[in-house]
């Protein structure tokens, strides 16, 4: 019988290397990233990563690229890119989350182009030396729902003219280019939405009203709010051209990321757990044996619950790799992670006590970070609604 939920030895080794990188190389800069509210300027950290592509980007690699990639990484081609992506995301943020977004393919903007862009666009924007990119989707009235997008793109000869407002956009001022979603037909709802590429010169023309939102966590990512007033860009900047089916593919990128995003949350929680376990171990003699047993039972339970979510994410990725509909399972994993991860980090904070909530440790930072994962890619309610809708379609029994 073929069922297996484990990776091969080679993948296990790569996971461990990545975990060590995150713990030993990334974590030392975590506090600095949080305090300065910007990625630390330490390119050697990124270079030291055993992965040269962010796992989240695996799925958009062409088959031959994926084979190359796996070869470089010395793992087996034992499963599809989505499964590998989940396996590799799990160790990635255990040290801290700040670094992996700097990896190639770390943001969905490249995914958009890889998936629905013309060959020329892929060639121009997604090859060559890696640069930081960004994506502008959210508006005042539109979060998860693309149909709410009000920023417009109007064709004028060889150019597009963009007008509107975007809020809470990550990495706007740090990126080399950005993918921006706007509608070419406001009457058409989500079907009218297209993605556009804007470079640094275009970004310089934005009317930036806030360059850095104050937020609770993931402070190393800066979020900007800006307005577009008659921004003109060349016609070939529309990803895939105006006839490309914009919204479906765009949403596909997000459904892929849901599974990975869920595992991002478990990764943070796992890092927290590891930290706290070590902290307790170092003080083991200060606890009564009964209490220590209880605490260790708690740890085991928390690890186990995290394993559950990873398995849901793996199932979704596996279905995706087989070309089957994975949306329901992806939402499942995403729906449960934030609340779960939050409760785990909170439990860790409590176990370490008052000291745990102080800035001497990173637990308080992770507690703030984890809060952000819920809002990203659709909060819990949206995910549960999706699961419910899919159950309904998927045939209720008698």
């Amino acid at each position, binding site marked *: 019988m073929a069922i297996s939920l484990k990776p091969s030895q080679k993948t296990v080794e790569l996971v461990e290397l990545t975990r060590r990188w995150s713990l030993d190389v990334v974590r030392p800069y975590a506090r600095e990233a949080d305090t300065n509210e910007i990625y630390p300027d330490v390119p050697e950290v990124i270079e030291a990563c055993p992965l040269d592509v962010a796992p989240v980007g695996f799925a958009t690699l062409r088959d031959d690229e994926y084979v190359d990639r796996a070869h470089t990484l010395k793992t087996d081609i034992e499963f599809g890119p989505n499964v590998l992506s989940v396996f590799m995301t799990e160790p990635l943020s255990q040290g801290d989350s700040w670094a992996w977004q700097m990896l190639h393919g770390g943001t969905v903007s490249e995914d958009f182009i890889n998936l629905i862009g013309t060959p020329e666009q892929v060639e121009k924007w997604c090859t060559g030396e890696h640069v930081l990119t960004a994506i502008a989707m959210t508006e005042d009235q539109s979060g998860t729902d693309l149909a709410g997008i009000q920023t417009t793109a109007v064709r004028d000869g060889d150019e597009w003219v963009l007008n509107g407002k975007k809020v809470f956009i990550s990495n706007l001022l740090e990126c080399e280019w950005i993918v921006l979603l706007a509608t070419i037909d406001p009457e058409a709802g989500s079907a009218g939405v297209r993605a556009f590429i804007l470079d640094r010169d275009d970004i310089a023309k934005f009317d930036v009203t806030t360059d850095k939102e104050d937020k609770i966590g993931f402070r190393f990512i800066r979020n900007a709010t800006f307005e577009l007033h008659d921004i003109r860009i060349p016609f070939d900047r529309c990803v895939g051209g105006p006839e490309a089916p914009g919204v479906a593919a765009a949403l596909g990128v997000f459904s892929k990321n849901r599974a990975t995003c869920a595992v991002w949350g478990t990764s943070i929680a796992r890092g927290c757990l590891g930290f706290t376990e070590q902290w307790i171990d170092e003080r083991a003699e200060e606890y009564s044996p009964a209490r220590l*047993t*209880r605490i260790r039972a708690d740890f085991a339970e928390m690890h186990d619950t995290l394993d559950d979510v990873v398995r849901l994410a793996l199932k979704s990725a596996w279905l995706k790799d087989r070309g089957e509909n994975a949306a329901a399972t992806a939402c499942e994993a995403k729906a449960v992670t934030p609340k779960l991860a939050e409760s785990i980090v909170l439990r860790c904070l409590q176990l370490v006590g008052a000291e745990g909530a102080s800035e001497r440790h990173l637990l308080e930072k992770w507690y703030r970070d984890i809060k952000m994962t819920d809002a990203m890619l659709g909060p819990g309610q949206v995910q549960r609604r999706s699961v419910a809708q899919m159950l309904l379609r998927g045939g209720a029994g008698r």
Partner: protein
Amino acid sequence: MVNLELSPELRRYERELREWSVEMVRPHARKADTDHEPPANWKEIIDSCPVPLSKNTAPAGAADHPEDLPTFPDGELMRGLVQYEMLNYGDIWAMHCMGGGIAHIVVRMLGTEEQSKRWYEPIISGGGTTGFALTEPQFGSDTSMIQTRAVRDGDTWVLKGQKIFCSHGASADFVVAFATTDPARGAAASEAFVVERGTPGFEIIRANEDKLGLRSWETSQLGFDDCRIPLENRLGYVPGADGTAGGGRLGALSVLNNNRPNVGSMAIGIAQAALDVTVEVLAEQRHGYRPHRWSAIQDDLDAMSAALERGRRMCRRAQWMRGQGLPNRLEASAAKAFSPGTAERVVRRCMQILGPDGASTDLLLEKWYRDLKILDIFEGTGQVQRMVVGKELAKQAG
């Protein structure tokens, strides 16, 4: 000064009631379940209670204080809660024997003086049983969907339709049945009718429904097949003044909704009984456990005890507010949303702790687990309570 305790007088009342309930009510629990009816000598048993009980001579926790009941500084509503909890602490069968139903009370609420004389007073003075017919197969919570028809034909009303979950329906001297004179208007055109036993067209489809629990409570399925009743059997009928009372009689029932905290107390009573039985059994078995398991069990017992206390406080708070004349929709629904669901978990957990013996017919836990389920359903399901809470919060906000 804030005080969440009962007065010493009411505590004494509570204790006497509890002791009697365990000694006299509980021994008949298993048989009442198996036989699907209360013990034959139920009247004798109830009469043996050392403290006075209210017996449905007035709506539960009525504003007008029944004369034969003692007064407590805590108020009649609080005494009502104690009665609900303690009777069910013995077993749920006794509740159904507290007076013969509520239909005569509905007559007094909705009927004329004349009707009260005919159908209410004889029951109060001479005893008797009255049945309540509201729920239909197609609706429970949403009374606007009422389908039982009442059609005026000369000097009679003709009833047509089906009712389920009619308390005392089959054995009652008369039932009060709700029907609509205009299906398009549903509840807005609803009227209440007294249908006496033996009226042609009044059928008992099932005398006592087959249920998961609560088997000793007679709940009947009734049919009205062109059942003809005199005009004066419509509650609110005034001789000479033709037609209906203007409909909306269902709305007038809302006073019965004040029962929610009482249902909460019933659940607490049952769960406390299960918990106490469990603690008793465990007291003899404690030596069997390894320490790490025993401490986990101890934790659970403490948590269950605390949860029941929390439920008690919620029920008391809701009734206290009502006693003060304060609106308590939110608090009453919160108490009802919390208590039965929690009680169910308590009993389930107790069975798990006791192992398969805990779910065997040697103990009453398995019966109580079956009985409890309905408490989260009738008088407004847990879902409906949450809707009410949500709506009340929205009202407060806006």
